[in-house]
């Protein structure tokens, strides 16, 4: 399908607050994004505002503090989705259409059980947690990510494996953890299934601890996809690195300030995938 026909559902509730830049990212690449309130998808809005998830080719859960993150990050948004939208979402994912969760969006996908989702599209209970950063602090800082996916993830198809990208983080709960009894098994399955997409590294591209791994995530993991590769969750914010001038050091790195930034490739990859496949 044509790029401009690709409809992107940017889903939000109260406290979702990165929807504008997510919208701008898809818009900048020529797709057709729309900011949609969850109530519009579950029949709780006036008629002319009603939407069906099925109308869209891409679902995006942006960052923010949905419902305040007061219970656990993403838990309330996930619970509302699960109770009213579970079947639609499962169908959406099963049809191979891409779902992207950034920051709070990643937390929501984990709470929903659609990541890491080893055995089914949506597990009954969460299989992982994005726990409080080891520093105990909200961390808004630059981070470097190494692309480690072998080709399954539709959001990084245009990014060579091993490439380092600079994409900032801004979160207090990004410490990816598995139940301790299944930690090793889950890590192995992630590797076997080619579900690891990004790992935090230092500016030289080496795995490193804090602050380059800003949250203490297991295996320095910054982003994972589902076994099919069409659902990606990541803590860093690629929509904040669409152009060089959004990078923290663009005044010293040379090159055109308005050239694409390091987050650009993620949006380009998924739109490329959708336009070829559908």
């Amino acid at each position, binding site marked *: 399908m044509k790029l401009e026909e690709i409809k992107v559902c940017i889903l939000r509730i*109260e406290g979702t*607050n*990165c929807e504008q830049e997510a919208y701008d990212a898809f818009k900048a690449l020529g797709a057709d994004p729309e900011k949609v309130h969850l109530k519009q998808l579950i029949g709780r809005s006036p008629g002319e505002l009603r939407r069906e998830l099925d109308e869209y080719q891409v679902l995006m859960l942006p960052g923010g503090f949905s419902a305040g993150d007061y219970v656990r990050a993403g838990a309330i948004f996930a619970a509302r989705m699960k109770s009213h939208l579970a079947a639609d979402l499962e169908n959406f994912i099963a049809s191979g259409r891409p779902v992207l969760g950034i920051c709070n969006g990643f937390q929501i996908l984990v709470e929903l059980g659609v990541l890491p989702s080893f055995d089914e599209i949506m597990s009954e209970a969460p299989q992982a947690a994005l726990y409080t950063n080891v520093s105990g602090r909200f961390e808004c800082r630059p981070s470097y990510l190494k692309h480690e996916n072998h080709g399954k993830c539709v959001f990084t198809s245009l990014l060579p494996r091993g490439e380092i990208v600079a994409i900032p983080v801004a979160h207090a709960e990004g410490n990816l953890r598995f139940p301790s009894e299944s930690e090793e098994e889950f890590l192995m399955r992630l590797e076997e299934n080619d579900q690891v997409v990004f790992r935090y590294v230092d500016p030289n591209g080496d795995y490193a601890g804090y602050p380059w791994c800003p949250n203490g995530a297991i295996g320095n993991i910054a982003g994972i996809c589902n076994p099919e590769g069409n659902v990606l969750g990541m803590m860093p914010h690629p929509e904040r690195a669409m152009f060089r001038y959004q990078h923290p050091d663009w005044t*010293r790195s040379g090159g055109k300030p308005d050239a694409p930034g390091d987050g650009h490739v993620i949006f380009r990859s998924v739109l490329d995938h959708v336009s070829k496949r559908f």
Partner: protein
Amino acid sequence: MGSKELTRKRAVPFPLFEVDLFSASPDELREMSKTMGLNLSLEELETVKAYFKARGRLPTDVELQSIAQAWSEHCCYKSSKCFLREHIFGIKHPDVLAKGDAGVMAFDDEHAYALRVESHNHPSAIEPYGGAATGIGGIVRDVLAMGAQPIALVDPLFFGPLDLMSVPQGVKLPKYLAQGVVAGIRDYGNRIGIPTVAGGMFFDPSYTGNCLVNVGCIGFLRKDKLLNNAVRGVGDVLILVGGRTGRDGIHGVTFASAELSSRSEDESRGAVQLGDPITKEPTIHACLEVNERGLVSGIKDLGGGGLSCVVGEIALAGGCGAVVQLDKVPLKEAGLAPWEIWVSESQERMMLASPKENVESILEVFDLWDVPATVIGEVVKEQKVSLIFQGEEVFDLDLDFLTKGPEYCRPTAASNVSTLLPVKEPQLPESWNSVILSTLADPNIACKDWAIMQYDHEVRASTVIKPLQGKPGLHGPADATVLKPRTDSFRGLAIAIGVNPWFTSQDPYNGGRSAVDEACRNIIAVGGRPHALTDCLNFGNPEKPERLFEFKEAVRGIGEMARDLDLAVPSGNVSFYNETAQGPALPTPTVLGVGIVEDIRKCVTTDFKVERNPVYVIGETREEMGASALYRRYGGSGGSVPAVDTSVLRSRMDLLLGAMSKGLIRSCHDCSDGGLAITLAEMCLGGDLGFEGDLGALGDLPTAVKLFSETNSRFVVEVELSRAGEFEALAKEHAFRIGSVGRSRMTIRDKGAAVDLKTQAMRRAWSEPLWRSLG
């Protein structure tokens, strides 16, 4: 409620009292003002009494409380207005589009930006987390009320020394306050998704009992969506939206209009509101949407004084009055008395005025976001407000009387301006190296990344020049932050703070001027042209003539600078009574400056870029050591506080902006706290490079002056090596070549003296202090 003898309950099934002003003696009136928490003077009470005598009836408690809110220093600027009128209000600027809850300035042909800064000092001293959070909430509403999307927050904070271990009774430890305030800003600002991009943390013993929490917000809007905080006329209804009303935040403004005391904690805890960012966030969406769709006549924020201020003001601004059904107001808990509902400052509330026929569409928008929205009244022709509660009229006042608060031209008395005092030289250690390392570690100069990285300074993805600059992980400081508010244009907004309380304390006039100079320098240093200022003037008790003198002089300095530099001042805020039994806070005029960046792709940062590039000081250095960081740190006193020559600042601005647009300048940093020595050190840090040079070019001054004088309107620039000739031809007498970018150490020679420091050592000194103190 009230002293028993004077109040009489009306025979209605809810708490409503009439207050017998007529028969009260002066002492009884004073007592009544105190027990009711009115904070009105005897003279003001006499005026109220005369008004009701003429009306031939006694006031209700609702009416008296309402008058107390409207006439508080906080709401009506009664002690500051006469000075502001003389120096600020008359400043004309063609780009000012509105002066309402926030000032609004033209950005380009189709767009505008809104700006305002205000204080939330008293609440933050009592309850730092909630006080700071609700400060953010309030300033965001001011900007939203103009029809603008909030796009940036700015928070200059002032505390006592962080290592202080004991404090007077009723005062909280500075460390506790700093941690609580930063957490409050973080949790509120991050949750509503507005980046906190600039600010500062300042430390002085005078702030121990009087912490200052200034909160600023920038908004952005299409010019055709500008709102004017007014009803359109009869036929409009008033819709209260957002949070519910409760007992939190009662008497916030009257509390803010008196000195804090050791009893404030117990007496005024209820004056601190409770913030709820997750009601605010959708309220922002919904307000912007109903404005976008043209459904509203005007919006106004419920801040100080709550409903009691907003209803009268929004109605009167449209030349009308209003009738309000007070029992329609959605409450947090049942049983609030009418006066409590009327003056409560519960958070997250906005008042919308709209034509009746749009009500249904508006309520639908708010319903989608699950935000309460309730029609509570309607606009009437007569300029008065009346309140009905369960069928009973509990309030009926003429707006002319209610909103025309008293105004005082209180006496001022010159304090000793220390510029005139003899100089006491500071006691300096032998080596300049140790002076520089120690000054870098001064909490007023040291890195603030402890706070900056807890604030999401990048949400909305338009922060293109960030508050920490240089190599990731090895950052140095920023002068100004730049936002790119439109996706389809490279035009930007540079945002910076200027304030120097120590200068102001020694020489209020030059302190005010220096604050503006600093804000302008910061904007120019990134490549912006200063455009508008807004200020938050934090001073002591205006009833004390020497405090009011400081205020008057600082305002004179700020006003003159704005006029001379063609800067608009479309909004501002005054906070008096920053004073306890232990003394006043330093006089603190905080200036928030906004500049226009023609093309953000030409912006410049503070970090040195390339080894061997030549480095220049722009502007001559004078012996102006008064209140400098060096003197403060090493026991110097007296001496001249830096003055400002606006024509010189202007020509340097034109020079630098011209050179930047030609791409000649690779880095630029203004000379401010700590003078040239600290400026050079900070430029080394961000670039993880060094500096090598000789200060002979600065003439025959003592080395201490060359290194540490804080003479205004100066900059340090790094110029592209191959274009040094081009730059020098442009800069002429303004530029003094002092050396070049080095590799990993800062080496400075001057006559016999020498500085030689590893960049790494300077980084350690500068980076660690706040982390050590605050954890």
